[in-house]
């Protein structure tokens, strides 16, 4: 029987959405064949989470230990390596997230299991796993074959697979004893640090004029500010703009910034990396201005302009003056 393990991501008492995307993918893949999908829930005091998961996974395997309360990859790795050695599933799926990126590579080295990270699709040819990866900033796809193995490890890109929806039918919950014996001082979780609450909240904006690295430098910002103002919107940005201190962190859109859902999102000089794009999918209309016709942002935008922003924005700014 084919068995797929999905690592459940949860933080501060909540299951993270990517978990349901992984379960959705696993369920579709198992489809008609004889197989079993199991969600692995590692934590402490997670009964309620297990119940919640059992609405979306046929089987939930729970390991509870005080040391699994917060995510410390050393303890997670200890538990997973014991579970994988014992059950030898065909596949362990994780998200390509702050969880998966911290854990998957070291686990794969420990157990000598082939791993492909940040995958956007998977298929099997016999027992051989083929992975599709998006490389060169999303402009190229790489078709990869993993070395044949009893068990494969994959981290899937978040935000691209439809999540598994809850069902009436309840899955079984199986409790496993914790294999953790020693407490380690090598790595300790201390605390979470919340993003500070600041003045303007871009996640509430109806119109966002969002600038990326492609605007070249902060000298162009006043023009974009003015445009945003005329439209009754706010200015937001991609990550490199914050990294370079052109705009403050609270303006950043993306997985490590804010998720936005404006009526209109205008992306200027933004290439469309998944870490950015995942967080704008709730926008009603996306307009992209980019001089590269192959920029991945055009794959998610509704309207596109292929040009240097300097040919377009000054004209647009004049045109919409007083439009608000």
């Amino acid at each position, binding site marked *: 029987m084919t068995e797929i393990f999905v690592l459940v991501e949860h933080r501060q008492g909540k299951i993270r959405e990517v978990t349901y995307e992984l379960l959705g993918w696993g369920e579709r893949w198992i489809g008609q064949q004889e197989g079993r999908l199991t969600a692995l829930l590692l934590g402490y005091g997670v009964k309620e989470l297990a119940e919640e998961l059992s609405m979306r996974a046929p089987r939930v395997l729970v390991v509870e230990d005080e040391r699994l309360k917060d995510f410390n990859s050393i303890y997670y790795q200890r538990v997973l390596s014991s579970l994988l050695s014992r059950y030898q599933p065909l596949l362990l799926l994780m998200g390509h997230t702050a969880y998966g990126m911290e854990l998957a590579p070291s686990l794969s080295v420990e157990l000598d299991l082939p791993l492909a990270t940040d995958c956007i699709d998977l298929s099997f040819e016999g027992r051989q796993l083929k992975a599709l990866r998006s490389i060169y900033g999303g402009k*190229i*796809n790489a*078709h990869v*074959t993993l070395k044949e193995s009893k068990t494969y490890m994959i981290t899937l890109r978040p935000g691209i697979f439809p999540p598994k929806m809850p069902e009436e039918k309840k899955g079984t919950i199986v409790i496993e004893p914790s294999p953790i014996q020693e407490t380690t001082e090598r790595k300790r979780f201390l605390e979470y640090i919340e993003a500070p609450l600041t003045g303007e909240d871009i996640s509430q904006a109806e*119109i966002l004029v969002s600038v990326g690295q492609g605007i070249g430098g902060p000298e162009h910002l006043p023009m974009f500010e003015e445009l945003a103002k005329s439209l009754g919107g706010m200015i937001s940005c991609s990550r490199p703009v*914050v990294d370079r201190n052109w705009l403050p962190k609270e303006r950043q859109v993306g*997985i490590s910034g804010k998720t936005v859902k404006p009526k209109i999102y205008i992306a200027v000089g933004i290439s469309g990396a998944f870490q950015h794009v995942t967080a704008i999918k709730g926008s009603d209309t996306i307009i992209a201005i980019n001089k*590269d016709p192959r920029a991945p942002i055009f794959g998610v935008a*509704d309207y596109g302009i292929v040009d240097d922003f300097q040919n*377009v924005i000054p004209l647009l700014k004049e045109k919409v003056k007083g439009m608000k």
Partner: protein
Amino acid sequence: MNIIVCVKRVPKTAEADLFIEKDGKDIKKDHLVFALNDWDSYAVREAVLIKERYGGEVMAITVGPEDSKEVLTRCLAMGADRALRIEEPPCFDALLIAKILARVIQGQPFDLILTGVQTEDDGWGQVGVSLAQLLGIPHASIVNRIEIENGKARVKRELEGGLEELLEVRLPALFTIQTGINEPKYVSLAAILEAEEKEMKEVGLEELGWTSMESLYATLDQVSFPPAGKMAEILKGSPEEIVNQLTEIIKKKKG
């Protein structure tokens, strides 16, 4: 504090036209501009800042072709003390890179290893954390602050949605560095000239006792352009005409 930084020379593709080689195994690279991987330049800067605060040495290491020496020179100009280039195996395999790095690093004294979170080209986000496991040292990934005290590091990891977590990690350790952790410093011409004087070593794979060049986990079958799928409606015409269309769209969608 002896710090090793792992760096890679990568092609800058965000604004470039890309073409695929005849054998379908890679993109054409002749017309591309190469530079230090963005994440790695933050890692090098961080290593130099830590050295300035706590003393010690910074060594930059790359596994790459002859041309990679130019990014090593850049690292030296940014303040690294020594550099090492290891010959590159023909592969598309993060584990193999990590294993080669581990083999070389095992013979060096170090307290801290820094890598980037990911490369701009292959983007595995895998080499750093694999390397830590190979060396048997603890790690933290996506790090955006490091403070060191009494043989321990307090590091901040970036999670999702603006949330961060604070960890304490015992040294020696490996951290994968996130962009924005520090402010890049302008590299002067004088610094580049000075860099030419610093130690840059090269080592072949055979010298390392490396015989098998086979990919360990993953082989690349082919590359392709992503299928067009749903594409934006591209507005056409002169800039004036485009802006007129755009204004109409904005008016309509604004409600």
